């Protein structure tokens, strides 16, 4: 029986990190004052807060662009990753042929191939979304493949005894069994998709006056506007956490049907 109050549990999970944040801000402020740090080395917390307020319109627009590209990349990796996992689950030969290349995709430095992506996809939204896709594909693919393959042998026997077809085994057994794995992968991928979009924006623009967080981070750094850089990084982080939280909430809601009691992700 679960008797803990969800409101209290939420407070317990959010208050300690906020306290730590307050401590860090105080220490940060003290350091800036105590060591007479120049604003282009480390701006004071208050300066960053001011930049956040002044840049709010730009930041909100940037989140909109980056978020759309990340959402596009993430949705594509969810679809493509699951589809490839389906194919991999059906044939050991295809799996052993293809799997190493996806590990390659995971390990290749994205910075190195980004110019290539621009060459192929052109300058603009689609290239940013593509970088986001490349970075976020692997967790869904690998968790999905694992989930589709790791089936209780007794359950497979049950299906075989009832003369189930390959398709029935895939749709009625393998896919539902893989849902927790795919969702765990999606949770990791959602954060990576945001990182991917920001990295993509380092190389690719959306056109004049339309820019995302990555471009903002890049240009404010070049112009030594470190307070604005901090504001952009802070916004990116908040945005990443929000996306992660949203995907987590969705997956926990779905997983309630799969597991008993409080739902924790495997992996």
């Amino acid at each position, binding site marked *: 029986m679960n008797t803990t109050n969800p409101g209290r549990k939420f407070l317990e999970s959010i208050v300690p990190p906020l306290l730590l944040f307050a401590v860090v801000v105080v220490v940060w402020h003290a350091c800036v004052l105590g060591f007479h740090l120049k604003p282009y080395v480390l701006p004071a917390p208050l300066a960053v807060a001011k930049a956040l307020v002044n840049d709010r319109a730009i930041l909100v627009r940037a989140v909109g662009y980056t978020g759309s590209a990340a959402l596009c990349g993430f949705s594509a990796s969810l679809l493509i990753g699951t589809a490839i996992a389906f194919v991999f689950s059906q044939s050991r030969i295809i799996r052993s042929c293809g799997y190493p290349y996806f590990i390659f995709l995971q390990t290749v430095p994205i910075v190195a191939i980004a110019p290539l992506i621009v060459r192929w996809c052109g300058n603009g939204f689609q290239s940013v979304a593509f970088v986001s896709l490349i970075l976020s594909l692997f967790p869904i693919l690998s968790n999905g493949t694992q989930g589709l393959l790791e089936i*209780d042998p*007794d*359950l497979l*026997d*049950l*299906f*075989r*005894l*009832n*003369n*189930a077809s390959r398709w*029935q085994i895939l749709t*009625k*057994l393998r896919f*539902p069994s893989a*849902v927790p794995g795919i969702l765990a992968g999606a949770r990791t991928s959602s954060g990576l998709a945001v990182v991917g979009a920001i990295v993509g924006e380092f190389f690719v623009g959306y056109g004049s006056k339309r820019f995302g967080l990555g471009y903002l981070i890049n240009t404010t750094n070049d112009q030594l506007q470190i307070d604005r850089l901090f504001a952009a990084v802070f916004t990116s982080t908040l945005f990443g956490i929000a996306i992660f939280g949203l995907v987590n909430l969705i997956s926990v809601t779905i997983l309630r*049907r*799969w*597991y*008993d009691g409080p739902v924790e992700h495997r992996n």
Partner: protein
Amino acid sequence: MAVSFGPSRPVLKEITCDIHEGEFVSLLGPSGCGKSTLLRLVAGLISPTSGQLTLAGLSPVAARRGDQRVAFVFQEPNLLPWRSVADNIRLPLELRGLPRREHAERIESSLKLIGLTADDSQKPPRSLSGGMRMRVSLARALVTQPDLLLLDEPFAALDDVLRQQLNEELAQIWMQHHWTGLFVTHNVAEAVFLSQRVLVMNKRPGTIIAEIKIPFSYPRKPELRADPDFARLCGELSQQLREAAR
């Protein structure tokens, strides 16, 4: 018939036996003697290394694909957690492509057989107790109206009172429907209570070392367990089992 996993690992050797239509037979043996392997052979889930096994004159797989319905109850309930009780019971009907209009009636009657209400049928399996889950697993096997029901220590994880109660219910269901039953267990009292015949197996490589007829008539009531003849048979079989485990 014999089975081995690799040349130096024989699991079963020289198994020869006949099981008649409508008969209830238990396979009794120490843990690891290959009882479950034998059950999987009968189900056609694995093939013998040498020798032959037939169901109604056909190989198990051919019989299963033909008109013989074979159902299997596992040690674990093995219910699909994303399906409700009713949808778990429906699974074999879906897989076998039975028309949907026939589902409701079949599910209802097998729920009734195992003593679950329509209310229970909409619950997820996780909200049921261990005994209830096993009942649902049994209902999922019975819903196919099997010709042959294979049971692999289905009640091993349950407490004694629940086990006895389910034994009584199972014997009752068998009496009503007369499928052929092959029941694997290492519990002597369970084997005697349920079966018409008990086959005792010895340790690996498994083989049948004794065959004992159980003379009690059906229906078998709980009082049977207090019968001196019941106790004598249990004692005899326990002795056999001890020798088999040596």
